[in-house]
C-alpha cells in the first residue's frame, strides 16, 4: 500500500489528520496506542489535566447526534487543557441556509486549531480536511457507513491492554456489518495490527457482498463463528438505519444472533466481550453478558478518553512541529 498523497500523514509520516484507519501504517497505530498508554495515568492525578494543548481551540462539529462520542472527545480535549467549542450543526447555521464551507470559514476566522467532525455522509471529514486551511487538523468522529477510526483505536487499546499482543488473537465481530462504520474501521485496524483471524458473523442481509476483500472470514451462525475466539465484538443493531427489510424482527434477531451466556460458551473461556455502545439490551446482547465478568464495555468508554487525547495531541503536535521546521 502506498502512503504517498495520504493527507492523513505529514511528509515524515506523522499523524496530521485522523480520517480513517485505512492508509495508516502499523507504526502510526502503535504510536497512538503507546501514547494513549501514557495518557491513561492522567486519570490518577488529583488534577486530571495536562497542559499540553493549552491555548488551542478544538471545535466539535457534530452534524449528527452522539452523546458518548461527543462527551468523550470533549473530556479528552479538556484534559489536554484545550478550549472546546461544541457545535450541533443540524440545529444551527445550516438550517438557516448557510453552506458547510461558509460555516467552516467562520470557524477558521475564530482561530480554531482542530475540527472533530461527526457527519451522516461518508467522506464528510475527508472533504473538510481537504478544504481546511493548513493549520487546522481534522479528526473523524464517524462519517456515514464509512469509518469511525477513534472508536476502532479505543477498541484496539482495550484489546491490547487485555492480551498485550495481537498476533495470536481471533476476533469475531457480530451484528450489522453492512451499516457499521465501526466494524469497517475495526477490521482495518485488526488486520493492520496483525491479528491472527478476523471474523464477521451476521445474517446475509447485514453483510456487504465484497467484505471478503478486507481479509475477513464470514459466518452466518453464532456457534461456529464464536468457536475458539478470544474477543467478541457485538455491534449495535442500528434501528435508525433499518429502513429496508433487513430483518424479520428484533425478537427473531436476538434468538439467532443475540449474545447470551449460553452462546458465549462457544468462545474461549478467557474471551472478552466488547460493544461500542449504546447497547440494546435483549436485542443484540443479554443483560447478564453485558454486565458480566467478561464484559469490558465500560472499560472501552474509559479508554476512549486516553485514546482520543493521544490522537488529538499527536495531530496537533505534528502541525506545530512542521510549522516550526524543527522536525
Amino acid at each position, binding site marked *: 500500500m502506498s502512503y504517498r498523497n495520504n493527507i492523513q500523514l505529514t511528509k515524515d509520516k*506523522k499523524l496530521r489528520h485522523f480520517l480513517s484507519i485505512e492508509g495508516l501504517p502499523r507504526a502510526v497505530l502503535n*504510536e497512538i496506542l*503507546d*501514547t494513549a*498508554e*501514557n*495518557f*491513561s*495515568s*492522567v486519570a*490518577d*492525578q*488529583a*488534577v486530571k*489535566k*495536562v*497542559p*499540553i494543548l493549552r491555548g488551542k481551540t478544538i471545535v466539535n462539529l457534530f452534524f449528527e447526534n452522539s452523546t458518548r462520542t461527543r462527551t468523550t472527545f470533549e473530556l479528552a480535549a479538556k484534559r489536554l487543557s484545550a478550549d472546546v467549542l461544541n457545535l450541533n450543526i443540524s440545529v444551527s447555521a445550516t438550517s438557516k441556509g448557510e453552506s458547510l464551507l461558509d460555516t467552516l470559514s467562520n470557524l477558521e476566522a475564530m482561530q480554531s486549531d482542530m475540527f472533530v467532525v461527526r457527519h451522516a455522509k461518508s467522506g464528510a471529514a475527508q472533504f473538510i480536511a481537504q478544504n481546511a486551511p493548513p493549520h487546522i487538523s481534522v479528526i473523524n468522529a464517524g462519517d456515514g457507513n464509512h469509518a469511525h477510526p477513534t472508536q476502532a483505536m479505543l477498541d484496539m487499546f482495550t484489546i491490547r491492554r487485555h492480551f498485550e499482543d495481537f498476533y495470536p488473537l481471533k476476533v469475531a465481530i457480530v451484528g450489522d456489518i453492512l451499516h457499521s462504520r465501526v466494524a469497517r474501521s475495526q477490521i482495518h485496524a485488526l488486520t493492520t495490527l496483525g491479528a491472527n483471524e478476523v471474523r464477521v458473523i451476521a445474517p446475509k442481509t447485514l453483510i456487504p457482498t465484497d467484505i471478503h476483500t478486507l481479509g475477513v472470514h464470514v459466518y452466518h451462525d453464532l456457534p461456529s463463528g464464536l468457536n475458539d475466539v478470544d474477543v467478541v465484538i457485538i455491534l449495535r443493531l442500528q434501528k435508525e438505519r433499518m429502513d429496508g427489510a433487513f430483518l424479520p424482527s428484533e425478537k427473531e434477531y436476538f434468538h439467532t444472533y443475540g449474545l447470551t451466556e449460553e452462546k458465549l460458551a462457544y468462545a474461549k473461556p478467557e474471551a472478552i466481550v466488547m460493544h461500542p455502545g449504546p447497547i440494546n439490551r435483549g436485542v443484540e446482547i443479554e443483560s447478564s453478558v453485558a454486565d458480566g465478568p467478561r464484559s469490558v464495555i465500560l472499560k472501552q468508554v474509559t479508554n476512549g478518553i486516553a485514546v482520543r487525547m493521544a490522537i488529538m*495531541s*499527536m495531530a496537533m*503536535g*505534528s502541525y*506545530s*512541529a512542521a510549522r*516550526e521546521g*524543527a*522536525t
Partner: protein
Amino acid sequence: MTTYDVGAMLDDMAQQLKQLYVGQDPLMIGIHTGGVWVAEQLHAAMGLSQPLSSLNISFYRDDFTRIGMHPQVNPSVISGSVEDQPIILVDDVLYTGRTIRAALNEIFDYGRPGSIRLAVLVDRGGRELPIQADVIGKKMTLDVGEQIKLSGPTPLELSIIQSEGI
C-alpha cells in the same frame, strides 16, 4: 572518552540523602528514563519502604509547539499519595532546569507534597531557570562538542563522549 565510577557517586548520594531524611520515609520519584535508572539504585541503597514512583514529563514540556510529541511508552506511576509527603525527585543530568520545572508542575497535579528535594547524578551547569539540586553526584563542565552518555539500567555507566557531526 572519559568514564566515571558511578557506584561511588551513588553511594555518596545515598549517604547524603539518608542524613537529610533521618527518621523519615520519603517518597522517591525518578524522571524517565535515565532518572528512573538512578532512582532505582538510590532507592535500593537507602532501603526506602514506599515503592519507587516514576514520572513521564512529556505532557508538561515547554517545547510541544516546537517539536510535537515524543513517542515513549512510560506512563507516570505515582505509588500512593503525594499529599504532605516528603519527596525526593531524581534525574540523571541537570542542565537547563526545564525538565525539573515540568516535573514539579506534574507532581503538583497529583497533590500538595510536604516538601521536594532534587537529587541528580550530574550537574552540568547551563541553567536557564532558577532551579538547583540539593544532592549532586558530580559537577561537570563540558567543552563544546562533548556529550554526557548514560547507559543502563544495569550496569549504570556514565561517560563523556565527543558528539558526532559537529
